[in-house]
């Protein structure tokens, strides 16, 4: 059982009892959807429908529906892919690394963050599929035994490493997320009055009894999975960065990419978690579970990773100059001053300057300011990938091939599709599954709310 100092502010406010927690979280699943949820879900589904139309055009007519060309072979597709993968990282970091470091504050956000990870990886995967010229052959990069004359994949290709990294990541994240949900599903099962939901949640909870043996196994597996996931936090984006770093293209061929990408991923992931949590806590009235304290902790992580990313940006410029390589130097001059200067400076403003505001405690603890910063950071991180991919490709070695990339409405539509998909999944999750890990929150509520619970007769604490 968790023991924390009385001096520390409680992680869960509002003097919640264990029953309050169960009720607050489970009732979201049990009640009829509220109007806010219905509105949000409808908008997401409509966006998804439009996005699916654009995706249909891409799949039916070909990638020519996008704005790519002979010089810029990747643009929004891989930008979106890396962006979504990056966003996913916060979930794993929160659930795995913070778990190993016994950061108890994570308990109220890890469920939603992990869900976000999974949905983000699904969105990212949708771009892997859509960006392929022949998506119906998408299984070819898998090393499957086949009848094509013992054709094997190219283990030298970072794209194959990507396949391994992302599929591992996705499966581990799914298992971790689901496993963590089993006790809560059992809680919902136990509270269910409707036989259908009792059956469904009953099946989903795998016969959880809540016995000591169950808990012991649950904790061991959680620890093992946390141990497995921890390297993934670092490895997945490292490998994604190698898609660029192992190439010969100036602006891509950079050894700094792995740490820079990982930091960027956590940076954008935390920003996305913040965006989502701020909305969820407002819609579901979870202010006592996701407190200003949580927001401040996450903001601190954003400052740190934002500074790492900023340092990486400057280091790249330094190295480009210091290397004396003509092509590399030009690439970076072109990034900052070429036709895509606006993308570069959007990235710098959003990613390097805006997080610095969070050094100010007042801003760090302001929900509105945090919400704005979190969105700006995500815009900035999207631009970071766009800058890396497009501004490096569009002016590479031979000036004769230099070209501009202009997106089409289908590019935008396929990007919207991922948003539609993400939010549709997220809202479904928020409606049908417990958004906060009740079991783990209960574990910390006793100690962290002890002071409050001892004085819970005081009317000022009754909500």
């Amino acid at each position: 059982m968790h023991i924390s100092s009385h001096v520390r502010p409680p992680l869960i406010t509002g003097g919640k009892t264990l029953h309050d927690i169960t009720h607050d979280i489970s009732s979201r699943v049990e009640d009829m959807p509220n109007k806010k949820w219905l509105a949000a879900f409808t908008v997401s589904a409509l966006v998804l429908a439009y996005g699916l139309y654009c995706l249909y055009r891409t799949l039916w007519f070909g990638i020519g529906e996008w704005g790519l060309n002979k010089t810029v072979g990747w643009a929004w597709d891989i930008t979106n892919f890396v962006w979504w993968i990056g966003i996913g990282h916060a979930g794993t970091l929160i659930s795995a690394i913070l778990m190993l470091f016994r950061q108890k504050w994570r308990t109220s956000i890890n469920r939603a963050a992990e869900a976000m990870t999974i949905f983000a990886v699904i969105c990212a995967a949708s771009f892997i599929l859509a960006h392929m010229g022949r998506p119906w052959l998408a299984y070819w990069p898998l090393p499957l035994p086949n009848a094509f004359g013992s054709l094997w994949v190219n283990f030298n290709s970072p794209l194959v490493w990507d396949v391994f990294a992302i599929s591992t990541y996705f499966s581990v994240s799914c298992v971790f997320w689901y496993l963590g949900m089993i006790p809560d599903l059992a809680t919902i099962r136990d509270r269910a009055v409707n036989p259908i939901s009792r059956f469904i949640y009953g099946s989903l909870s795998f016969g959880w009894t809540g016995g000591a043996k169950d808990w012991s196994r649950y904790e061991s597996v959680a620890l093992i999975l946390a141990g497995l996931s921890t390297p993934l936090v670092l490895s997945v984006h490292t490998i994604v960065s190698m898609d660029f770093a192992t190439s010969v293209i100036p602006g891509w061929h950079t050894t700094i990419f792995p740490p820079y990408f990982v930091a960027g991923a956590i940076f954008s992931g935390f920003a996305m978690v913040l965006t989502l949590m701020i909305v969820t806590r407002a819609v579901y009235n979870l202010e006592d579970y996701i407190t200003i304290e949580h927001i401040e902790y996450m903001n601190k992580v954003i400052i740190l990773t934002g500074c790492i990313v900023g340092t990486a940006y400057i280091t790249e410029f330094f190295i480009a100059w210091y290397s004396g390589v003509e092509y590399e130097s030009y690439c970076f001059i072109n990034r900052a001053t070429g036709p895509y200067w606006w993308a570069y400076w959007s990235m710098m403003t959003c990613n390097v300057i805006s997080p610095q505001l969070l050094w100010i405690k007042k801003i760090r603890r302001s929900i509105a300011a945090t919400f704005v910063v979190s969105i700006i950071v995500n815009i900035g991180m999207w631009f970071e990938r766009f800058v890396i991919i497009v501004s490096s490709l569009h002016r590479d070695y031979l000036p004769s091939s230099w070209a501009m990339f202009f997106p089409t409405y289908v590019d935008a539509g396929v990007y919207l599709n991922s948003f539609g998909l993400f939010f549709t999944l997220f809202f479904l999750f928020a409606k049908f599954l417990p958004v906060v890990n009740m079991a783990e929150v209960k574990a910390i509520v006793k100690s962290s709310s002890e002071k409050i619970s001892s004085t819970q007769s005081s009317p000022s604490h009754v909500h």
Partner: protein
Amino acid sequence: MSENTKTYWRGIEELNNTPEFAAHANNEFADNPDFNLDGGNTYRRDFLKVMGFGIAAATLAACETPVRKAIPYLNKPEDIDPTIPNYYSSTYAEGGDYCSIIVKTREGRPIKIEGNKNSSISGGGLSARVGASVLSLYDKERYRSPKISGKNSTWEDIDTLIITKLQDFALAGKQLRIVTNTILSPSLYSALAGFVAKYPNTKVITYDANSASALLEANKLSFGTTVLPSYDFSKANIIVSLSCDFLGTWFAPVEHSNQYVKGRKLSNTKKQMSRHYQFESILSLTGSNADFRTSIKPSQEGIVVANLYNLLADKAGAPKIEVGELKDINNLSKAANDLWNAKGSSLVVSGSNDTNVQIIINSINTLLGNYGNTLSLGTPSYYKKGDDNTMNSFVDELVSGSISGVIFLNANPVYNHPMGAKIKNAISKLELSVSTADRPDETNVLCTYLTPDHHYLESWSDAEIKKGYFSLGQPTISPLFKTRQILDSILTWSGNTTDAYSYITNYWKNNIYSLQTTYQSFQSFWDNTLHDGVFELKNTNAELSFNFNIASVTESINSNYKAASQDIEYILYEKVGMGTGSQANNPWLQEFPEPVSKACWDNYASVSQKFAKEKDLSQGDIIKIDTKNGQTLNLPVLIQPGQASNTIAIAIGYGREVAGKAAIGVGKNVYPLVNTTDNKSKYFGVVSAITKTSENRTIAQTQTHHTLMGRPVVQESTLKEYLKNPEAGRYKPLIKTNQGDKKPEDITMWKTEGLETHNYKNHAWGLIVDLNSCTGCGSCVISCQAENNIPVVGRQEVINRREMHWIRIDRYYSSDADPEDKSLMGYRNMEDPSDNPKVIFQPVMCQHCNNAPCETVCPVLATTHSTEGLNQMTYNRCVGTRYCSNNCPFKVRRFNWFSYYTNTKFAEINPMMDDLGRMVLNPDVTVRARGVIEKCSMCVQRIQLGKLQAKLERRRPIDGEIETACSQSCPADALVFGDMNDPESRISKALADENKERAYHMLEEINVKPSVSYLTKIRNV
């Protein structure tokens, strides 16, 4: 043995062998007594079974993919073996372009034009237009039968009607004209003579869309003979060209390129090259290759030529022409000095269509003693015979109504003659109007009788291109439609029942056979000439003497030209691909990037950078141009460095109104802008006003960044430096390491010896591109397109930067900025080309890197390295991640963004979209599916064919036997393909000895080890 014979049985029934069993033993399928649908006692289960089977069978049958029938030969034609190509020599002759060609046919279909090395004129090269002409054969717009007033007819009917008319004309003494472009065929001439003899009130009018009439007339006046001289640029050490695009669009570009480049090549055994001065208004292909280039306004041309004459006359002590002295024309006196020092081995040419200018040029060449050396009237050439005078008087007669009938012999004057509008109005009033054009054009839609000609690949033909230089053309396919070659038509109408083939053989038997002594019988003469494609006598007549009072041109020069003019002038020019517009419905040529501007699918108003700045014009702005002769047209602006300031250049050959779908709506017709001065078409004039409109049209260009940005991808030097050190201009990158500076190739992460070197045991294919030889003409681009089934993608997709050409010719302009200034502003300045830039052309195809960046990144091994050094692309395996394309430093990989052969978006432009157009496809090369990457394969199918051939004959392939499409068609011999493992091959010799100092690889610093080498460009400045 009998004791070993045992009886085996398959079942107890067989052992028992009951009568019942015996009755059924021979039936393959057992009867099912329960399964009888007709008997009326069908069981429910059987019914369901049968119904289920029926539905399943019907569904499967409905799902069946459409059957594409390949019909085998019932009687295999002699000489046609499936999969084995046949080659036939033939002749291409059209509007000043002539090539002796080899036609590659597969299963009876001509699919590719190659150069004929037997010809000393075209020398095995091709031009883009000649290479693309095979596609015109499969143009679905072609007429499929003769037509009377737009309705299909039969040859019998139409001939009867035409002959009746002709006889009426002869009886009534009505005037008939036959209007044609230059005809090179002596047999056709002879047939026309027969026609004129039969109908004496007939005249043959010859004109050319881009006329050389002045040059013909000048030769008549100064030498007494109305012919063109033969030029030999290879013998000229100093070449001065005044507005003459002899490498691109003047007549005989293939012949002239071939000669010109001979004088420009350098090697350890040939250390001298010609020097080339160009004075011109537009930046032409020829001007781009010049060592010294000066921009002049078209209105200055005559004065510049006269000044050049005066400078030389000074030295020679000849009489001068009284014109104002020009001081500010750069390089003119330098050119004069060089010319004088190279007397007898220099050459001055002019593209002007002004007789007086051409007379001065004749006089200059006479002063320099060039006749008999670098140009010759002893061997006159016949590329262009059009006479503006007779054509103009024909138009007058036509308008006045004194002519009753016209036969347009493949000529389209309504479109391509400056007075086309007048002709258009007059045609409807004619009693007899006949056109032989094989597809709709502006003229023939107005004619009553259409008697469509064969495509030249369906016809017998002959040509006399120069005096004593003959060639033969033979059909390579049965006529696709009910067409008839014009020789047959003319013969029929003349009442001659001989067919074209017999007529040509008879003509050759009677007129040409006797000119030679090699062959003892006509049959062997004919067979050998037909096989070789050409018959060349190569005997030269005596030169003629110049006999003209040069002073008499003074007045005309002074009145027609001005030393300096403030007017904005327009100049009309031909594009290298589109020419005069006769092949406008050829999508390959429409998508062919103009070598200098790199623009396709449009004509436009080219203006200089200075002019654009002054008038506040940016690329793509549509301007309204009003000319002094009352014409108005709107065109988008293209900013063209090197264009003379205050001039606007517009290409002819666009704005077709009646042509196929690919041609309609592309550009504007500017033939009406052609002026007539002294009865000669004048291809420039004065603009009275230009107005910027608010509209905009993006011009499709395959290259949009024009300068090198100080990068050593093109390495060049001057002849002076080269003579001091053959390595001059070479960039040799060194990488700093802790063990000192090292060559990139010496740095490797592999410790194992030998791993980083690529040893190919059998062949190691490679290519050399000599930047000094490449003129940028783009013949290779079309040749590659034909060979490798490269789709046409259309204007919008080119704007989207998705053209599919596997070989491109990068064109860079020099910049005035300091290439060493690597600051922000330094780079900014490097983006701007000079006002009069030096130009360089660099053909770029897949470099077949030995350390190929594309190969390591493909997740599915769709692109791999062959054991012969080729970078191979396996289309079937490609999933289309485009990673290889991103990682290609040369950006030579092309992605199939759409299904180009089925997507209806491309129906009007991509020949692969219809059955007829598909006949041009090379069966040896896969048509690529949507979503896969493609790129130059170094014509692996040709390599394979050559290797198999050699293997069958139990020998090694001989150098030169296997050629890539690009190297085969190059008129400049700038591309040398071969086996780098064969020490005797041309490529090995060049790399090991002849040109080893000049050879470099692009981007040596990244150590990708290409198989393609470039030889430095050397300028003679």
